[in-house]
Structure formats: C-alpha cells, structure tokens
C-alpha cells in the first residue's frame, strides 16, 4: 500500500503538489508512481525560468524498466529544480515526498490548485490501477 499524505494535491499522472502558501508550489512524483517505476536511475530536470502550461511535459524520469514523462500539474514558472537528484536519483524512491521533490513553480493562478485531486480521490485512482 502506498503512502498518500493528506496535505498534498495530486494529478492523475501521479504528480504530487505541495502548496507553499506564498503563490509557489513544490512538486514531485507520488509514492505509488515511484513504486511502479522501480529503481529510478535518472531525472531530467526542467530549466529554471521556464514557463509551463498546465499539462505540459517538462522532463523525464527513468528507471531501468521505464521512462515516463513528467507533466506540469499547473501553469507557472519553474523557480527551482532539485539538482541533488542529478547525482542521487534514487532519492525519488527513498523519499518521494520530501528529499525527492523535483521542482518548484511560481503559479500563474494560485486558485488553480483547487482543481487538482485531493488525497482521497487520488487514493481511489491509485487503487484502480
């Protein structure tokens, strides 16, 4: 059973979003997603300063058995990327919700957060897979 923290928002493409309360969010991939991928070997990070539309592909996460695109959960500008993942991609497996975060965005519209899945809805989705 995977861990799905109640304080986060989720997408149906298995990203999580943490509201930092200042118009920015932190995002990563869920515990369920890292389990499904298996040992992560590489994370292609977005460039800081890049503007993203909601749903836009912004990177790739690779394991030994799969390579999955990362999608922007919300529109915004990349303000930080987790460069520690370049040398230690396994952090995504070990700590998907904390040290394994992938990027931080400055949201174009803070209200858009409400449109994402809550923990309960995501749990249902993850269960169905």
């Amino acid at each position, binding site marked *: 059973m995977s861990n799905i923290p109640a304080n986060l928002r989720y997408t149906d493409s298995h990203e999580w979003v943490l509201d930092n309360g200042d118009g920015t969010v932190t995002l990563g991939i869920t515990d369920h997603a890292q389990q499904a991928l298996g040992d992560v*070997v590489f994370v292609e990070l977005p460039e800081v300063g890049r503007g993203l539309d909601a749903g836009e592909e912004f990177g790739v996460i*690779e394991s*030994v058995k799969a390579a999955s695109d990362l999608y922007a959960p919300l529109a915004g500008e990349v303000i930080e990327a987790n460069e520690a993942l370049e040398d230690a991609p396994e952090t995504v497996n070990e700590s998907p919700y904390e040290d394994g975060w992938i990027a931080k965005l400055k949201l174009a519209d803070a209200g858009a957060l409400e449109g994402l899945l809550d923990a309960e809805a995501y749990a249902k989705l993850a269960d169905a897979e």
Partner: protein
Amino acid sequence: MAHDTRRLAELAGHDAFIQRHNGPRAEDIARMLETLGVDGVDSLIEQTVPAAIRLDRELDLDPPKSEAEALDYLKRLARQNKVHKTYIGQGYYNTHLPAVIQRNVLENPGWYTAYTPYQPEIAQGRLEGLLNFQQTVMDLTGMELANASLLDEATAAAEGMALCKRANKKAKSNAFFVADDVLPQTLDVVRTRAYYFGFELIVAPAAELADHDVFGALLQYPGQSGEIHDLAPLLAAAKAKGIMTCVAADLMSLVLLTEPGALGADIVVGNTQRFGVPMGFGGPHAAYFATTDKLKRSIPGRIIGVSRDARGNQALRMAMQTREQHIRREKATSNICTAQALLANIAGFYAVYHGAEGLRTIATRIHRLTTILAEALARKGIALAHDSWFDTLRLTGVDAGKIHGRAMTHEVNLRYFADGDVGVSLDETTTAHDLDVLFDVLMGEEHGFSVTALDEAVAEGGISGIPAACRRESDFLTHPNFRRYRSETEMLRYLKRLENKDLSLTHAMIPLGSCTMKLNATSEMVPITWPEFANIHPFAPKDQTAGYLQMIDELAAFLVEITGYEHISMQPNSGAQGEYAGLVAIRRYQAAQGQGHRDVCLIPSSAHGTNPASAAMAHMKVVVVECDADGNIDLADLRAKAEQHGDVLSAIMLTYPSTHGVFEEGVREACEIVHQHGGQVYIDGANMNAQVGLARPGDFGGDVSHLNLHKTFCIPHGGGGPGMGPIGVKAHLAPYVSNHVVTPLPGVEADCGAVSAAAFGSASILPISWAYIKMMGARGLRQATELAILNANYIAKRLGEHYPVLYRGRNGTVAHECIIDIRPLKEASGISEEDIAKRLMDYGFHAPTMSFPVPGTLMVEPTESESLYEIDRFCDAMISIRDEIARVESGEWPADNNPLVQAPHTQADLMDGHWERPYSRELGAFPSEAVKAGKYWPAVNRVDNVHGDRHLICTCPSINEYRD
C-alpha cells in the same frame, strides 16, 4: 541389400539442403504430431492458418538447388561483377580486413549467429568488442560518449539532426543547416527525414553557417571533394549563435586531423567502413554516433556501459534501454533497433589490432600518397579545386573524357563530377605502384614522374595537405586493449577468449520470440567475402555490377512471389527502416492523390514499439486500436476508429501473425475496414516466418510490408546487426519507394528521397537470402514454415502442462511462437520471468524474449531449424525450472536464496569458500545431464542494471581495473 533403383535425378540431391535447414527428422515429426494428437502436418496447418487467407497452391519458384549447385550459380553471377581499382571515395574506401579478424569474426558463427546482447551475462565477449568500438570512436572524434553503431553515415546524420532539434530547446528556428559539401547520399537521406519532421533545410557553403537562423547544422570533415575546413571558427560562431553542430567526419582522417570534439562539435557521426569492413556494394557497415556528455541521455541507438555483477565484479551491459522504442513507442528518441554490431565489432578489432601506432602508419601512408599525387599534378600544372586534403583531390580544368578513356584502359574507377572535374580518393590499399598507374591515367604516360623521387621531396620538404591549424596533436587509443593485441597470436587468443564468453547458435537454440533465430547456413555465408561481392563500390559504374544487379533482381522476384506484392524496394537496412520507408511511400502516394492531409496511423496496442516510433518519424498521429481478451485486434474498436478518423486516416500498421503469435481470423476484414475508409494497410513482416508458402500478405489485404531478411531469410543477427528490411509494395506504391541521388533507380519518382546511404542497402548480405530461397525451393520453404509451426505447437503443448500459455488461436493452436505467462507464478512465488531467463543460462540456453509483447511473460520461438532433440532439451529445462519454482513456492527454499534468484551460476560461485545456500553447488551449475556432458559458463553473475544506469560509464574500464 536390395538393388537401389532410384534414378540419377533423385540421387543427385538437388533438394538435399532442405533437410539440412529443417531440424526435425521424419520420425521426430511423427512423434511431435502424436504428442499433439494431430494426424498430419497438413491437419495442423488447417487447424492453425485460417482458410480465408491460405494460399491454395505451391509458390512458383525454381526447383531447389544443392549447396554446391547454388554456390556454383552464384559464383557465375559474381564473376559478372568487375573488381576494378576504385578511387571513387564519397564515404566508401577499399580496406584490408586483417585475415585474423576475417576468419575468426566475420566468417565465424560464434560471432555472427549471436543475438543482440539483451542478456549480458552470456554476451560479455561482444559487449567488450562493442566497448572497444565506442572507445575507438570517442578517442578519434574527441567526444565524451559514443553509441554502439547506427545503420549508415547518412541515417546517423539524420539522427544527428533530430537530436539537435530535441536538445536545442532554446532555438526558435525550425530550420537545419547543411553544408553544401556534405556527401550527396547523406543530404538525400537528411532531406527525406527533414521533410517528414517538418524542418526546413538550408544548404549553403559551410562558411555561411553563422549567417543563418537555424537550430542545428551538419558539416562534413573533410568535405566531400576532399577539402579540409578549419572547423574551429565555424563551430565557435555557431555556438555563439546557439546553433548545435553535427560534424560528419571520416574516421581514418581523424588519425591526422584535429578531433572535432576538441573544436566544439556537439555531435560527430560517420562511417567506420574503412576500418576493415569491405565496401560490399554499399553495406553493411557500422556508422558511429558520438556526442558530448551533456547529450548522453538523448543519444539514439544502443550504448554499452560498464556495471557490476552480483559478486561486485565488473560486467558490461547495454545501458539506458528505456529510451528505446520498445518502451517509449512514439515518444522514443528514434525507431532504431537493429544496428551493425558485427561490423562495429570488426571495426573495433581493426583498431585493437593496429593500435594508434598502426593507424598512424596507415593514415600517414594514405596522406603521403595523396600528397605525392598532388605534388605531381601541381608540377604538371593541373589545377586542384582546393589546396587542402587528407586522401581526396579534385582535379579541375582537366579533359575528363580523356582521363576517363585512360582510366577504362587501366581498369581504374575515378569520380566524375557533373562540372567536368575529376575526383580521386586514395585508401589503405593504395600502393606506390597504384600511384604510378594513376599518374598514367591522370597525366598521360609521358608524365616523367617517379613516385620514389616525389616521396623524397614530400617527406624532406615537409609538404602536407593538412592545414597547420588542423593537425591532430592529442593522443588516442591509449587504453591497454589497443596495445596488448598487436601480434597475431595475441589477437587470435583475444578474439577466441571473447567469443567463448558468448552464447550463440553454435551452443544451443536461442528461442527468442519474434526474432526467428534459425540456421544461418555456412554455404549461405560463404559468398559474402568473395572479392566480387565484397570489393565493389556502391557507386561503381553499372557495367561493373551486372552480377550484383542480377542477383538482386532474382531475389526481388523470389520475394514478390513469396509475399504477393508487385515490387520490392531493397533499400531499407533494417525492419525499422523498412517501416519508415513503407509509411513514407504511403504518404507520398496519398499526397500525389491529393490526400496528403491523411496523417492518422492506426496501431494495435499489441504492436512492437518500433511501429509507433516509425509512424511518429513519418509525421503521423498514432491512434491505438485495442485488443480483445484473446489478444486479437478488436474489430469493433477498429471500425469505430477508422470511421472516426475516416477523412484523415492514412494507414494501419498490423503484424501478422500477431505479435501474440496468433493467426487472427479477422485480418482480411481488418484490412477491408481500413481500405473502405481510404487508408492503406502496412503489414509488419516480422512474423513472416509463419507464412512463407502458406499465405501471402499481398493477397489478404496488405499494400506494403517489410521483410526482416535477418529473421525469415537467414541473414544472421550478428550479435545485434546487420539486418535488411526491404519492403514489398503493391503496384500503386511502387513509384513512391526510396530512390537514390547518386545511383537512380528505374520506375521510382525522381523526387522520392532515399532512406539509406546506398541504393540497395546492405547489398553484400543479400546473397544469403538469395541462396536460402534458391536451395529450399517452394516445397522446402513451405515445409520450413510448417515445421516452425509444428515445433512451436509442440513446445506449447509440452510447456502448457506446466505453465499457462497465453493466446491461442482457434482450435487451441499457436502460430510459430508461443507466450508463457509467468505472472501467476511470480504472484505465488516471487520468482520472475527474469529469474527464469537467468536460470536457463545455467541449463545452457539463451532466454526466450522477456516481457514482449506482454509484461511478465516469456515468448518462445523455436524456428524450423531446431531438432526434436534440442526442443526436448529446452522443454526439459523449462520443466525442471518449474519444479525448482515449486520448491520456492513450498517454502523449501527461501525466496531470496534459491538457484533461480542466484542464477546464473559462474565458476566464481563454485570456487567460493562460503557456500551459504540451501542447494548444492552441483544443482546450481550442473542442473541437467546435458549440461554435465558439456557446460557453457556464463562469464559473470547477474548484472546490476540499476547501478549501470545510475553510474553511466561507456568507456573501456581504466587501467586500474585491469590491475585488480
């Protein structure tokens, strides 16, 4: 004994090859049929192949010839080729393949019958060979990373263009710059690719590069007529403008020229043919593809990397497999699958054998001879188009007609430019005597020059064609592998040592589903190194290639009869390239009909990943058609999607029999649905081995198919290439297949660009398929198909009692392969398909195909070439493994310490003083009687994939590693 009354016609043994190729004897066939409870092969075929598509006659082919007769006939064809002294250049050069490499690698089934090294524990030999290749490329180009080969220089350049676009995210432009002195065949292929990617091409002099707003650029080094540009200012100016650069460089010239990596190139591509691989009328040869470290995660093709095994020892493997098309499908970096492993190995060994010192001598000799020629021409007052060169001169203002006349007399081929200039490219095989002849040809016999005197003048005078700024200063091939094997004895042992690490068809059946690992008969292989086939330049005059052209015509006629199509395009170099060529032909045809807006390609969810990757490259939108519970195309879904996309429906790509190994009953209907909506039908020929002589895709609805000659038609897999993927097309598509800019093809529209560098792809391996068909005849080919189906059904029957078999057709039969489902077992025991694959190595077998087309399964394809003895040996191993799994299920062996998860077992395991396992060493390494009688040892323990992909190292391991 009674007097034998058979007549000579029967005793002559014209059809003797059939029983050499087909494994099962008459009594084997009887036993297998009995096991299946079927009264004859005919009944099995009736139960398996739908009546609606069955061919109701024997193929119309010549009666079979014996091996001796076929070789004799082929020799007569070969003699119609004329091996003239060739100085045409343009990316193809004469070379001396060292005999020790020719006999021990190119002509050695231990090397050429192996498969792509997906199972690294039993492929360490060729993985090391390919690592040598990568190291050679990296050192000579000065780049940080190289892949393990691509199909040819032209497609490598096209991949370079695509990589520039992918990686250069900041560039807004959609245009790509190509220097006007890029090889014409490269430009031809790049143009085709650019058109379907939607890129604009700007072709202009290299010096103008920075004047254009482009995302990337392709430069040739040296240029096609021999000129050496100083790349440094060009690449620097491009970099300043945010343009990514791809340099197509001649590998031999890089021995003496500054390496492009040192000058700032992002990508370097080229051909390694002149490193010991015969020209072969265009191929096969290994192209190389090298990049900066920054681009390592986007590099197309296969890359060999260094990892470690379960004991912590160094082990090699293919790295970063997840970017390949079988996982990424339409999002893959490229559709490339088959590469040129055998030829890359040869080029790598050429570098190992000669080392830096030997290569310097060869390159210096080539350059010296060229400089002597330039000096003589200068003294004679003959003008050269440029005053820099490595091995190629372009004579200008000459009487080309006169030169041509003298060249014909001396049986010398030169390059004749449209503007009357004459080109000369020297190579490794050129001698001082050859130069004397060239003097006569180029200047007339009264020239009065002596090569020896000129050599003296050039050597003493320090005369060189290489501009001072472009002379190489850095070392290369400093790794011990390039110093240790310089004597033939050391080289011979090195090659044998590597060969012995690898499992090939010389050891056991390789039951890889979808790969058709059948016999690659020795007599089929013999002709490829005949000089009349090996030493022909792809752009040699037509009157020197008559034997080749007739052999190709005959092979095309055989394939037309076998497939039911009306024309064969022999250009594509692999199945994936055939897919691309076929889809491009469809798009060109539709454009000519005013239907160019059709761009939707329907692809069943069960398709091989290359299908969507190829469709994406042809700028098509992939729409997935679902499969039903039996694994067949869901016809209702197909109908709905064809209707929904009716106006824009371009094509469907389907595989027959399906990738699930089933003859789908509805295939004819599926084709009709697509045709009704104005679409074309592409039938993937990967599984043609289940159809030859029984059904023809051209008859049941196909408009185009590729044929993997390296599967169904006996070209060996070479450890990951070469391959050939010619396409068969219906008449309406024939004008739209690939043409060729240097050697135009009859019946094809002039503006149909090429998909590969040579007009007939890898022509020198076509005699293999020709000989196979010639020696089998119609009856032999049909029997081969029938026995491939019988063997697969026998395996499905025997293994079906121990493992679930997925997807059977009507009457419960499979086609030529079967899928064994490991998922329930994994659920129950934790033992995975990978554990079984590795455990099979202990039993002396290569694993079946893992997790394709269904994750968690094994797909087994025995082919017709395996005898009942070998098939039973394999089934016994699988059944014994099932018993071992039962001991894990029962708890007798822990899930994390049993012979399956510990597999494969190596000699290091047996020698280990600490054997803390609940089973004996003997059970680990000698689990069957067959293995006790003759053991093949995996060279390393289970390879750590995660470590290799996290810590990507793609160079020969450091000297310190060797000191361990």
